[in-house]
């Protein structure tokens, strides 16, 4: 039968046309796209056939799916602000009304993470840095937080109203914006660090029995149980996580600078150095085990790379493999 005579029911009974609709064969797709472009007067019947095919197959058309996907993207863009429930009707309206501005808004919202929590009396906004990547959080007062891997920052909804209180688990660097009369306070367990216009780092991982406060600039007051201490720039204070055991040390400013910039450098590193650096960097417990008689050294530079990439490099070069057991990551010879 001549294609020019085709009606919807003929199109749908043409196997090649069906494959074009379902996009299951590239050649058929090519053929029908060309053909329909050449004979635009057949497009209406073909569209009818296509619609019928999807309905009879209990399938959703790609166009309908695209609309749904648009709604999802719009919802995801605003999902990180605590709103009770998303109204799909509202989103449908937005999506239908303005596709382009919406795309722009989606981009804006996803690239500019909303830091300010919106509602609720005792609600928190949670920021979590995942397994191996750190995360930057800009707080409502303009302070910047670099949240290290495996760390969680709780920001109360009332943050920056009268007070600036935060709760941290793990490790983060705080670059505190100056704000008169609004003390900036970070709590982890019973340890509190208070600051006014300063940059400091607090580390208190769950696996670690120690906590550490590192002061880059400005001034902080550290309080735990009955102990209180003030730090000056360049000083690091370590203490027990459960009970105060304050010890002050000088820290290596170069190491902090490198941490801040996200540049991880191994220079002729021994197994112990590798373990210590990875633990310091990614907030995990690491043990590097090597075969006797096979000393290893590792060189490498990583810029903001996730842990798995760094591990892959370390393992590949030295013929090792990594295994996670409980809280600890073991880097060990490949077992045979």
């Amino acid at each position, binding site marked *: 039968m001549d294609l020019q005579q085709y009606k*919807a029911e003929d199109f749908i009974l043409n196997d090649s046309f069906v494959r074009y609709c379902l996009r299951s064969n590239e050649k058929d797709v090519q053929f029908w796209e060309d053909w329909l472009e050449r004979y635009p007067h057949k497009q209406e019947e073909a569209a009818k056939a296509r619609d019928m095919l999807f*309905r009879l197959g209990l399938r959703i058309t790609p166009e309908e799916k695209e609309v749904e996907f648009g709604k999802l993207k719009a919802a995801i863009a605003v999902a*990180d602000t605590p709103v009770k429930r998303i109204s799909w009707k509202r989103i449908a309206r937005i999506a239908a009304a303005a596709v382009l501005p919406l795309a722009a808004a989606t981009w804006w919202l996803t690239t500019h993470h909303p830091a300010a929590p919106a509602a609720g009396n005792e609600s928190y906004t949670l920021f979590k840095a995942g397994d191996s990547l750190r995360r930057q959080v800009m707080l409502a007062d303009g302070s910047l937080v670099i949240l290290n891997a495996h760390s969680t920052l709780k920001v109360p909804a009332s943050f920056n109203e009268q007070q600036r209180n935060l709760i941290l688990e793990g490790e983060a660097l705080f670059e505190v914006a100056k704000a008169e009369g609004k003390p900036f306070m970070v709590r982890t367990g019973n340890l509190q660090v208070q600051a006014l216009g300063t940059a400091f780092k607090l580390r208190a991982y769950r696996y670690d029995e120690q906590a550490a406060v590192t002061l880059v600039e400005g001034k902080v007051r550290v309080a735990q149980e009955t102990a209180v201490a003030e730090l000056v720039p360049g000083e690091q204070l370590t203490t027990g996580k459960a009970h105060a055991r304050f010890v002050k040390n000088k820290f290596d400013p170069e190491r902090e600078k490198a941490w801040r910039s996200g540049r991880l450098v191994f220079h002729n590193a021994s197994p112990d150095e590798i373990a210590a650096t990875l633990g310091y960097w990614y907030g995990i417990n690491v043990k590097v085990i090597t075969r006797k008689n096979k000393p290893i050294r590792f060189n490498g530079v990583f810029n903001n790379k996730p842990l798995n990439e760094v591990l892959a490099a370390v393992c590949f070069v030295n013929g090792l493999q990594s295994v996670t057991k409980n809280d600890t990551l073991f880097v060990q010879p490949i077992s045979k």
Partner: protein
Amino acid sequence: MLNAHRSTESSTGRYGEKEYAGFWYEMQQDNEQGLYKIYHDLYDNFYHYGVSVVLDKGMVKEAINDIFVDIWRKRHQLDMPENIQAYLFICFKRKLYKLLTKNQKGTVLTDSQLFPEPEEQPYETVLIRQETDSLVKEKLEKMLALLTSRQKEFIRMRFYEDLSIEEIAVKTAATPRTIYNTIHNALVRIREVYTDATFIALLLLLIDPENFS
């Protein structure tokens, strides 16, 4: 009964569990692309399952988007499930159940709409159910009643089960010519109803969603 040919629980999308773990990981790193890949991969299966147990398209679409937004919201609290596809499918089932019980307040809930073990409905029923517009539903029901059981069987095999005419011929002992003509005659009738349905759908798109949502 909708047979297992395109059953959702067993069949999956293009990707395996390994890729899914990667997508999930991306999502937990706040990269929504991971979530979107899972969404595109599972959508058709979810949709198909949804319309076969539940009321209309609109509800199914809403339920699918809902679970993906929920997962995104909880991405930092959720551990990676061992079987991501199975996990999401259970989430989806629960969501459908919630939507059903919510929307059905006041009306009687028939057994077939009760979870956790929803029954998949016969092809004809689902064809009618997936339509959103009540007028179209009614017309379709009337039209389907006029078709012979042979016609309905062939339509289901060809377009729902994706069998070729030759395969249907082997299964039913009818000649390909007969099958072709039988389907053709049925399609001429079905087409009238669907043309109306498409028209109504287009009309609704043009109206401000406020008025009918």
